[in-house]
């Protein structure tokens, strides 16, 4: 344990050092450019590439990350890029801009490397053929056969998993999103309205009610999953006891159910609704509390009933809080892999509950269909983009009705 601790600390140090070095390099790069705007391109280029060269040397020395030939190549390319960039900055460089660019650069380089580049890489993968059989060749030589639109065609015709089809997944995803978001908002609104009364123990209720959101997601989902176990889960135990006590219920068709294997989608939905309500509740409660009391008093004086107050004061004023929360919630629900994977992800798990994103995850990492899932991911991305755009248009349209 002791040497392991040391080793891991060393690794963390190495990692922070790495980030610090990259940051330093970027800063040196910007500093050199913006502070020699009048000199020729050569000096800035050489100066700012030096730390980069050191980094490459270290990478070569440390181990099997890159080879010497690759390092030289990368270095030459970066020198060329430098020359171009610095001659550009020579004419365009504005010293005042140095600081803001230096400040945002490390973060944005990180985002570019870890979000933008993977996106591009995904497009590359989708048009090539990477699977378990070609993986070894690819990681050694970098060669991948080009397959055109084949994977995109497969996405719509072959199952991402073993039987469920793309169209089934799509339908289920939309249904899943609508049902979940509806119950999140309805449940959240109901609880928030209850909590917004002047009652005792309000703080305690609020604290207890956010617990599903506050618990680590993995624990919460696994715990709930346990409650759906066919023999030892709370639900079936209760059903068993009820039917024992009132045989009439059994005659009405109440009986123990194989939740996890036969009704996986329903189980996942129930668990996710349970998980998502507290967030909406907190957001809506915040919105409710920001509505000045005087509006309700004015409405009372005007003779509004409770419902009318809710309809004409609460709802419109809740809208600025609700609209972004619903948008966010929709995206989260659409993209929610966690619940479904944790409930059905183990070997032998069912495909009954899968939605697009969880099928994507399983296709990539359970079935190892790399390129196929890259294409699949792009399809989902486009779908989501189209839905978002439509939603934006729609919400803009309703906005003007209120203003």
């Amino acid at each position, binding site marked *: 344990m002791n040497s392991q601790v040391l080793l891991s*600390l060393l690794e963390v140090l190495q990692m922070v050092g790495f980030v610090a070095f990259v940051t330093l390099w970027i800063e040196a790069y910007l500093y050199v450019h913006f502070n020699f705007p009048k000199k020729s391109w050569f000096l800035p280029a050489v100066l700012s590439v030096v730390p980069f060269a050191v980094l490459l040397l270290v990478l070569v020395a440390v181990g099997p990350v890159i080879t010497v030939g690759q390092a030289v190549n990368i270095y030459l390319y970066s020198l060329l890029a430098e020359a171009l960039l610095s001659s550009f900055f020579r004419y365009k460089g504005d010293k005042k801009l140095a600081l803001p660019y230096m*400040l945002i650069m490390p973060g944005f380089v990180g*985002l570019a490397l870890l979000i933008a580049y993977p996106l591009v890489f*995904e497009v590359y993968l989708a048009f090539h053929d990477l699977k378990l059989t070609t993986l070894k060749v690819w990681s050694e030589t970098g060669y991948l056969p080009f397959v055109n639109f084949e994977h995109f065609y497969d996405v719509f015709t072959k199952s991402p998993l073993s039987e469920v089809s793309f169209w089934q997944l799509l339908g289920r995803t939309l249904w899943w999103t609508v049902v979940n978001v509806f119950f999140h908002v309805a449940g959240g609104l109901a609880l928030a309205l209850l909590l917004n009364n002047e009652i005792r123990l309000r703080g305690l209720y609020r604290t*207890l009610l956010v617990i599903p959101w506050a618990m680590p997601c993995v*624990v919460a989902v*696994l715990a709930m999953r346990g409650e759906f176990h066919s023999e030892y889960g709370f639900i079936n135990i209760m059903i068993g006891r009820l039917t024992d006590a009132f045989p009439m219920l059994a005659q009405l068709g109440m009986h123990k159910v194989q939740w996890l294997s036969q009704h996986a989608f329903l189980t996942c939905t129930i668990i996710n609704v349970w998980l998502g309500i507290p967030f909406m509740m907190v957001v809506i409660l915040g919105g409710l509390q920001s509505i000045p009391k005087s509006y309700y008093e004015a409405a009372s004086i005007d003779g509004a009933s409770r419902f009318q107050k809710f309809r004409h004061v609460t709802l419109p004023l809740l809208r600025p809080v609700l609209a972004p929360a619903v948008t966010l919630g929709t995206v989260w629900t659409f993209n929610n892999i966690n619940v479904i994977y944790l409930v059905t992800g183990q070997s032998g798990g069912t495909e009954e509950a899968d939605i697009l994103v969880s099928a994507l995850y399983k296709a990539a990492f359970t079935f190892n269909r790399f390129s196929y899932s890259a294409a699949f991911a792009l399809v989902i991305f486009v779908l989501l983009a189209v839905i978002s755009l439509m939603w934006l248009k729609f919400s803009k349209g309703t906005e003007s009705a209120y203003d």
Partner: protein
Amino acid sequence: MTELRRSTPRFKWGIFAVHAALILACVINIYPLLRIISVSLRPGNRLISTDLALIPDGATLLSYVSVIKNTNFLLWLWNSLIITVATSLIGVILASTAGYAFSRFRFPGNKLGLTLLLGTQMIPAGMLLLPLFLMVMKLGLINTYLGMVIAYSVSSLPFSIWILKGYYDTVPRSLEEAAMVDGTTQFGAFYRIVLPLSTPALAIAFLFNFTAAWNEYLVARVILSNSAKYTWTLGLFELQGQFITQWGMFAAGSVLITIPVLMVFLYSSKWLVSGLTLGSVKG
């Protein structure tokens, strides 16, 4: 006075109904947690039972001893801690400077950058996982902390930048101007005046990064396959997978993890929410 008395009876029933509804909701929301606690206290021979009592007969802490002694639980926690702290530190440092630039400077790309940050929130996390995994694999960083930190480091960055930008916006500019007239550089004014004043926001950003990485499961599942490098989420899932035999240990481990997380969360949830809505409303 008469007005008040007349409305009292109806009012009382209303209050009663509100309390009843809230208590019901509370029970539903905390029951799974209570059940986990109850299972963790069960003695070994009756781990599996259809008993619903919250404090089981012959309650014992044996499961806790065994999850610490017989599994890698402590190691998993340690792994999680290292990865999470490194991730959060990097995230907060990057966000603190970027947020400042967005709050204080007008530069070409200012608006675009902020919009792009919001845009990244729309990208399905599962979508980037595959290329990220392949990159980490190519760099030979599978089963390393470094690989995990790289994969995690920017996931909370856009949100952190928005939170910090929002907070910096509330710090009066004249403070920095005063500092600059007093003799600091612009950057000096940032780290001597603005940063110390922004500790609450920095703490929130750190906490947000921390919880996100601490509770993460899917990325870890992909990058870590060696059980000695597991984070606690992977470890617990494994324990729970073998449902029958290790149910007690799973429950004990869950309780050990959940209690501190709950406390931190409940303490900070107010700010987290305001930050969440801030980030989305302003966009």
